[in-house]
């Protein structure tokens, strides 16, 4: 099963991400802050979903660090924020996609599938749609 790392400081949103992604057939690891992601001390996922607003460190900083790290630079990062202006900043730090809150679940899942299905040819599950 493919693993996705979620980093968001809001417990309500983490619950939602977990529900959406587990229903879609992914396993999920969640962080409320970004400090761990600045070290190499975590199991590499297939994709990151990172909110700009994290406890302790800015999500954009986390994204930039992941994209500069040899181990993680090829793993897709989806940046999330309630502010549309973050779209430009996310691009600047190398994020692969930007999603503005609130979003439609279907749109979000499609975006995830676009990356995970393209990266690996032998995907073992399909979208529920």
């Amino acid at each position: 099963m493919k693993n996705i790392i979620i980093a968001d400081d809001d417990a309500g949103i983490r619950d939602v991400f977990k529900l959406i992604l587990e229903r879609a057939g992914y396993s999920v690891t969640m962080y409320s802050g970004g400090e761990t992601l600045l070290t190499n001390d975590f199991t590499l996922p297939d994709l990151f979903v990172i909110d700009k607003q994290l406890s302790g460190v800015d999500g954009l900083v986390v994204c930039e660090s992941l994209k500069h790290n040899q181990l993680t630079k090829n793993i897709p990062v989806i940046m999330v924020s309630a502010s549309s202006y973050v779209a430009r900043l996310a691009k600047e730090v190398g994020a692969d996609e930007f999603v503005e809150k609130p979003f439609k679940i279907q749109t979000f899942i499609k975006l995830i599938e676009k990356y995970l299905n393209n990266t690996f040819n032998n995907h073992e599950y399909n979208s529920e749609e």
Partner: protein
Amino acid sequence: MPDFFNTKKNKNSTIGFTAEHNLPQLVKELQIANAELKEARRAALNIMEDAILAKEALHTSEERLRITLEAAVDFAIINTNNEGIVQGWNSGAEKMFGYTPEEVMGKPSDIIFTEEDKEAGIPNKEMETARIKGKAMDERWHQRKDGSRFFMSGVMRPIYDSNLLGYVKIARDMTEQKLLEQQKDEFISIASHELKTPVTSIKAYTEFLSDTFKDAHDEESLELINKLNTQIDRLTKLINSLLDTTKIAEGQFIIQTEKFNLKTLIENCIKELQHTTNLHKIILNAEEKIFITADKERIIQVITNLISNAIKYSPKAGEILVNIVRAKDGIQVSVKDFGMGIPEDVKDRIFDRFYRVRNALINTYPGMGLGLYISATIIKRLGGKIWVESKQGNGSTFYFVLPYDNE
């Protein structure tokens, strides 16, 4: 005035001496000349007296002006010559900037600007604007002698005799008001941002429930959850309007342009909006291909706002006509409804922030009065113009024009 300095001699002169004159005649002429001289002296004295009085009056009025300028302690009044060198510095200026008149008289007036504004050439630009346009607004952070900063609102005007004499600037410390405004905008920005997070969760859960009910063929619950979803979308729009408004206030409202077919875009908007009403028929009239370079998302926002208003303010149903035409100065879009119309006296104010038309007969309509303000900002930022034609009771037509592409 008699010509008593004239030394030219001729026969008819009153004071000319010639051999033909006899004595009595000469005495008579002398008497006349003497009288004229007295008259001239009186006239000269009068003129001098007038001059003294005028000088006194001038002095009084100058003194009055000086006292007035000094009394305006809450206003900085600065006079410069046409090169921006300080010629006048009132007590208000001393109080506001911390420099005494002795410290600044005869020196460049740009010492009141911050380093970055000086580097950006703002002081010179300001004089140029004042010269060309007759006045220049000076609303920015300035710097005191001790280096501290304050927000100043002022206006600079050129002063003329027959030539440009220099400039006068009148300004006020508006730091308190500016900080309050910033706090208010910041609050709205943070509040709206924070509101979006729970809304994201709620929206996700309603979507889950909607799927669940669909799978269970529970039509009744599905209808309820869809209604809930509509209200969440409405809440999201309200939050976005508040965020847009604070972004405009903070100068962070970003416009990103691309080329697209305006007709297709408006067609899609109409399709979406037609779903929200059973009472209205939205009719589009346009050529097949009308390409334009603008901000696609923002134009969707404007069209949605204008058509939603047309629906909202024509509650007794009817048609809503949307036209796209090629006008002289650009592509013109109009949205016409047959509703209650807009009273003449408020027509100019409906594009203001937080302004709402109230109708005494039908209570009020929901909304915050931000839609048209945001729409007007978008159109202006895209180099276009927006206006309304309406007669109370006879519906309204909103127009906007966007400039043609340059190519």
